[in-house]
């Protein structure tokens, strides 16, 4: 009996050692997943006076290896203003590339960009109501669009504190105050640097919302020093206050030292502000979250909101205002 017990122990230990408690992997049947159908993605964020232009693509089903393209060059894209209907034309891939390079240095060559449809004879008019309609194969999406009056966006005060030449580029320090925000507002700052040997560069300082009753926090300007807030961040709010229901925001910003281009003489820095609506603000914020958290197993999934009926993307107007231009001599 003792021998039997010992054998039994040996058997269990052998099986134990031979069994592997590592991860094992099996592919899942795709029929179990819902919502696998494709969607049209429509993006149109014009300011008053912009030409009719709509970017369109479709989602790729990520589990389908044969579904390799977002392209929808042969889609039908309409901009309808009352009884006036304009059918937009797709521009060539070369033009798209040129168009995107105008705004983006982070564009990667292997990223497939959306198709762009334009009508360069017609411009969006402030106060008008438009409907964007996109048809592609069996998909049809639409969105309503009202062009907001653009200027003035906000009452702004801009003060250039310093321009400092640094080893890796030129840093510009601003103090910007925005007044007269009477209720919830959403806006974007854009900082362009038009270099001599490079494509123009856009660097958004941030996308902000000012809720109606935002908590008040104020930092003393005397606390700021040359390195403030740190060398990795490009901007920071320094003061946000509310008085008599009117929000007032001031912030201190600098061009980050890690900015990946060199400035030379005759470069121009331009700071502009865009007023956007909540739908566009949410779209931008959630898009960033979705992208940043991709592959993070600890992150909750981020759903990107849309105002496109039966589709994805965002259609809304923006108001632009140039605040500052500076040429380095």
């Amino acid at each position, binding site marked *: 009996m003792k021998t039997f*017990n010992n054998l039994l122990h040996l058997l*269990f230990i052998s099986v134990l050692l031979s069994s592997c408690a590592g991860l094992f992997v099996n592919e899942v049947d795709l029929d179990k997943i*819902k919502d*696998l159908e494709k969607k049209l993605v429509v993006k149109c964020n014009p300011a008053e006076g912009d030409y009719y232009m709509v970017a369109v693509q479709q989602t*790729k089903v990520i*589990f389908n290896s044969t579904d390799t393209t977002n392209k929808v060059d042969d889609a039908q894209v309409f901009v309808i203003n009352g009884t006036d209907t304009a059918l937009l034309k797709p521009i060539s891939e070369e033009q798209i590339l040129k168009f995107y390079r105008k705004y983006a240095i982070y564009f990667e060559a292997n990223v497939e960009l*959306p198709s762009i449809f334009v009508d360069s004879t017609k411009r969006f008019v402030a106060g008008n109501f438009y409907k964007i309609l996109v048809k592609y194969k069996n998909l049809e999406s639409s969105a309503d669009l009202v062009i907001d009056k653009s200027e003035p966006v906000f009452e702004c005060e801009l003060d250039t504190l310093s321009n400092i030449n640094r080893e890796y580029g030129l840093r510009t320090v601003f103090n910007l105050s925005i007044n007269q925000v009477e209720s919830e507002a959403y806006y974007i700052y854009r900082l362009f640097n038009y270099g001599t040997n490079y494509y123009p560069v856009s660097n958004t300082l941030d996308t902000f919302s000012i809720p109606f009753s935002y908590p008040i*926090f104020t930092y003393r300007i005397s606390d700021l020093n040359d390195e403030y807030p740190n060398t990795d961040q490009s901007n920071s709010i320094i003061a946000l206050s509310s008085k008599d229901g009117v929000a007032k925001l001031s912030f201190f910003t600098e061009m980050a030292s890690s900015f990946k281009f060199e400035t030379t003489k005759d470069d121009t820095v331009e700071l502009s502000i865009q007023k956007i609506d909540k739908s566009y603000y949410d779209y931008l914020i959630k898009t960033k979250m979705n992208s940043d958290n991709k592959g993070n197993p*600890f992150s909750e999934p981020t759903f990107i909101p849309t105002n496109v009926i039966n589709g994805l993307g965002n259609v809304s107007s923006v108001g632009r205002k140039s605040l500052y231009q500076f040429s380095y001599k």
Partner: protein
Amino acid sequence: MPKMKSFTLVLTVLLLAVQGFAQEKIKEPKRVTISGHIIEKDSKENLIGAVVFIPSLNISTQSNNYGFYSLTLPVDSNFTIIVSLVGYAPKVGDINTSSNQEINFVMEPSRVLKEVVVNEKKINLVKDTRMSMIDIPIQDIKNIPTILGEKDVIKSIQLLPGVQKGTEGSTGFYVRGGGPDQNLIILDDATVYNSNHFFGFFSTFNGDAIKNVQLIKGGFPARYGGRLSSVLEMSMKDGSRDSIQGEIGVGLIASKLVLEGPIKKGKSSFIIAARRTYVDLLALPIIKSVDPNAAAGYYFYDFNAKYNDQLSKKDRIYVSAYLGRDKFYANYNSPLYSDKVGLFWGNRTGTFRYNHQFNQKVFSNLSLIASDFVLDLDMSTEDKVEDYSNQNKFFSGIRDFSVKYDVDYVPLTRHQIKTGFIATQHKFTPLAYSIINADYIGQKEERTIGINSIEGAAYIEDDWKVFRNLNILAGVRYSMFRPQKNPRIYNNIEPRFSTRYLFKNNSSLKASYAEMNQYIHLLSNSTPGLPTDLWVPATSRIRPQHSKQWAFGYNKEITSIGLEMSIEAYYKKTKNNITYKEGASFLVEDVFNLDFYDTLNYEDRIVSGTGYSTGIELFMRYTQERFNGWIGYTISRTRQTYAEINFGKEFAPKYDRLHDLSIVGSYKISEKTRLSGSFVFSSGNALTVPVGEYTTTPDESGYTRTVEYYGERGNFRAEPYHRLDIGLQKIKKKKHGTRTWEYGLYNAYSRANPFFYAIERSDFDDDLLNSGFSNDKGLALYRISLFPVIPYISYSYKF
């Protein structure tokens, strides 16, 4: 609030009215009181929850947490008295109520539900006024096979109806649609904040030191509060007052020791229990053989100790303590430099309790309780050439000090009143750190983010026998919470109500209603068990979580075959549930984003919403001399709604499962051999997987981003989870004790259950790719499974 007040008013009026009616109809004769303790035969331990039953009057009471019972009976009568408790042979005796008497009942462990001589009902599921409550005998827990043979209280709880398990192997549990943070886990009156060892694969509770385990899922008596979904109450053993006893156990990953015995025989006793894993010790030589400068490992240990002393016939003290720690370390020490990283976390609890019996009708207990949970991360570097060193310490945790006073009062035959209060000071420390750089003289930076708050509650409840067959357990709990530096004080009234109507055929109908408030929240990512989960208080922006639960049940017992069953339906409504906002994750991000006032910005990262859970639960327990076990089945639906998640649409939370089945059994083949097994089946939980992707047009910063499109939240149901575990115990009596060999198989048929799902990407981990992914298929969804069949073996010797 007006609704609540109205309800309380109505309840009070109703109670008074019915009481008046009852007193008028049923004149209380002159009475005497029978009281005493229920004691286990061998160890002389007090037994909790034993039912003392007078068949002819159809009245009963239960022994409290200290084994004390009290019954008030008509004078000068003869009664048969029955004492019963699951896992023990019933005691039957006759008493004459000529005067007040103290009677202690000594009970002997037994697996048999012998039919009692008198043809009357037993208590437990059928007769108890409370509902949605299950006691599991500790011996049953020890018989259930578990992974690597480590007996686990919480994994046994997961086998009960209404309780969903978390991920494979984890000790997280979800009761009636609530999250793991909504379970109040109590060990000897002390709250245990983190019930996990080894990232959730083992619970912190050493089954050898536990006397009693009780889970309450609904119909909460007023004495419990502070969490929405469940109360898991455990009592440590007191220690044998008769003789020195002990047990040693050796398993594949851990060894343990239990020692108990009298200090002064019959009056005072102690118990100590310790457990430690030793995988790190076994692995160290292997690590050293690869690199003699390196050392790394992981281990956990826990330690329970308890002392009790009968100071006088009416006074008794208990001092109990628990300490559990997990530690992960990685060190490198070379002649040039050294690096050390240590991460440890764990709970400590300490309870001092003083029992005083004022008279036969009034029993009281005063508890002074301390409990804390800490997470400590130490990192240090030393450059021995440059004479530079750097030491970083990060700390977070929660610490409670509580005073609790409870009184049991049995004024009349038909009333058993419990009342008391508790006051707790919480000290939350979401983050503290110190950084020391030795290259600058005196450079040291320290910072502590602490939040204090006060939580208090007072309650009263009455288990009232209204008529012969109708019992009502009604109570009310007042709770308050005051966060630090916060002008808002939360005050809430929580009505509780349970009723039971007993039929003649050993069956009963029950109904209950309970409101609960929860003032502290767990900031957690979706994975339970990580020690980085942090408790934070309600604030003026983050309101307390609140629930209302209705439950109805039918209970039936067939004593002749040892079968008892219950079927319950429930509906639970919650509000102010919290969860992370979309895209928000891991708390480290929060704690390092402190604003300039050193406050934690968690309020900005979470959202509040509402939810509901509804379901039907079936529980059948079979107890015979050779075979015992249970079947638990639940069909349920849970939904939550948050304005900022899923576009404000209702969705199924992660651990919503439609079906959940557990079958547990243990068969005594002979005196020397016992075979046990458990089978679980659960529908897949609700997950969200991306189904499409697209690249955005350049945003205002010129970035293009490839983003994922999900469709709806919960668009994918994980595959069902099912598993069979079997164990065989070989027991042999030796000269000085009993030794047990146990062999078993976890996941006996090697079902590849989902642990998590992953989408293959080009930058996916190479090891995973090599273990089964195929690159030629493009993107695909993969199920990652953790445990195939895992055999285990363990040895224990009890003396």
